[in-house]
């Protein structure tokens, strides 16, 4: 239907309609896409990190997994993924973190290369839809991998995503997707070097009875039933 590039550090939003999908491609490798998801018809219903993790017993996201709202419904399904791991744990960067790690670069001197952070990008974009940081809970960091060891320690895996890797999200509801390409907050790279991504939105067929996301867990089968009932 359409394609668009998201420049490094920029924020993008779209109401992704049920029956369409969003493919995100890490064109250069090493991208991070920090994203949040709301039910466009009632934005108090939104992506819920704990419900997503505990319904599927996961601490990473890949093909076959779904993103749950706090209302027991599925916002998006992951129908394709060549990166194999996306991080649901670490959240987003903010102004203090970016200033402390990379310093400051203002628009006055740097024009559109000025240093951006994910929290401020989300706050501004939410406001365009009548929402605010009250509506900002957990985010997903696509293309980033953070592993947890037996003591609970979190480690960022450098070089996880390679050029051309992509992930595809099928909208199961009409979903307000807000995302940006700011660096992952645990990325040890000392330089401000966010990467761009390519987005493509296309029509997709409705999930079949043997859809892999539906069958990946009995919980997801019930999640699809509850989502389908919402549209009855």
């Amino acid at each position: 239907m359409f394609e668009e590039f998201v420049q490094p550090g920029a924020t993008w939003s779209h109401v992704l309609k049920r029956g369409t999908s969003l493919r995100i491609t890490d064109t250069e490798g090493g991208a991070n896409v920090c994203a949040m998801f709301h039910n466009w018809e009632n934005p108090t219903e939104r992506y819920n990190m704990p419900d997503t993790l505990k319904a599927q017993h996961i601490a990473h996201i890949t093909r076959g997994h779904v993103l749950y709202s706090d209302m027991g419904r599925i916002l998006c399904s992951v129908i394709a993924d060549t990166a194999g791991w996306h991080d649901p744990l670490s959240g987003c960067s903010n102004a203090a973190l970016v200033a402390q790690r990379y310093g400051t670069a203002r628009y006055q001197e740097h024009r559109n290369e000025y240093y951006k952070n994910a929290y401020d990008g989300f706050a501004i974009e939410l406001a365009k839809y009548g929402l605010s940081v009250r509506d900002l809970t957990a985010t997903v960091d696509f293309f980033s991998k953070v592993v947890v060891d037996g003591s609970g320690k979190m480690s960022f895996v450098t070089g996880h995503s390679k050029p051309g890797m992509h992930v595809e999200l099928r909208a199961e509801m009409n979903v307000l997707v807000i995302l940006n390409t700011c660096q992952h907050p645990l990325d040890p790279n000392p330089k401000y070097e966010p990467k761009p991504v390519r987005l493509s939105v296309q029509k997709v067929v409705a999930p079949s009875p043997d859809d892999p996301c539906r069958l990946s867990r009995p919980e997801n089968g019930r999640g699809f039933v509850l989502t389908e009932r919402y549209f009855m």
Partner: protein
Amino acid sequence: MKNMLIDPVAVRHDAVIPAGEPWIHEIIKGQHFRIIDLEGNQAADTLFFNADDYEDRYSAQDTIRAQGNIYLTTGTKLMSSKGNVLLTIVDDTCGRHDTLGGACATESNMVRYAIEKRHMHACRQSFVKAVLGWGRGLEKRDLPHNINFFMNVPVTPEGCLTFEDGVSGPGKYVEMCAEMNVLAVISNCPQLNNPCNAYNPTPIRVLIWDSTD
């Protein structure tokens, strides 16, 4: 470990929260806040708000990222969504607390267990009741992901989330010092569908006192 005994003159609030009940109370900067697992392995689902700016509230992701560890224990700074320290955990006889498992809700119970479970009481009901009762503009929209004090939810290196037997026990407690004025909200978890409360939700006790440290 500090002395269990607290000067009774300094105590500003002392309450037992039965299972399935909400509790909401302000804690003033510098005050200490202790939650006691009276009978053991009871989930105390807990939220905090900056009492002077409710948009600034507990953030599970910011908290675990700031310390680079998913478990909460002594020394953990409980971070807000705007990057502030709400409280610091100063004592912990349990040793490990969860902030990835979130709260049970009637809707997530339908997904996790069975659609017929919709009627069963859940933490989200208590959280909504607590903040609506408190008023001042707080509503369901404002509920962030919570802390599950006394719960053990490990993550494997392969990226799986597991629910393990509790590491808490009768009388174990966690104690925090408020680094700013905060509004605390607890749902004493009523979950009957999984072993998080050993299928027997029990009371917890909360204490707030003026610190002499």
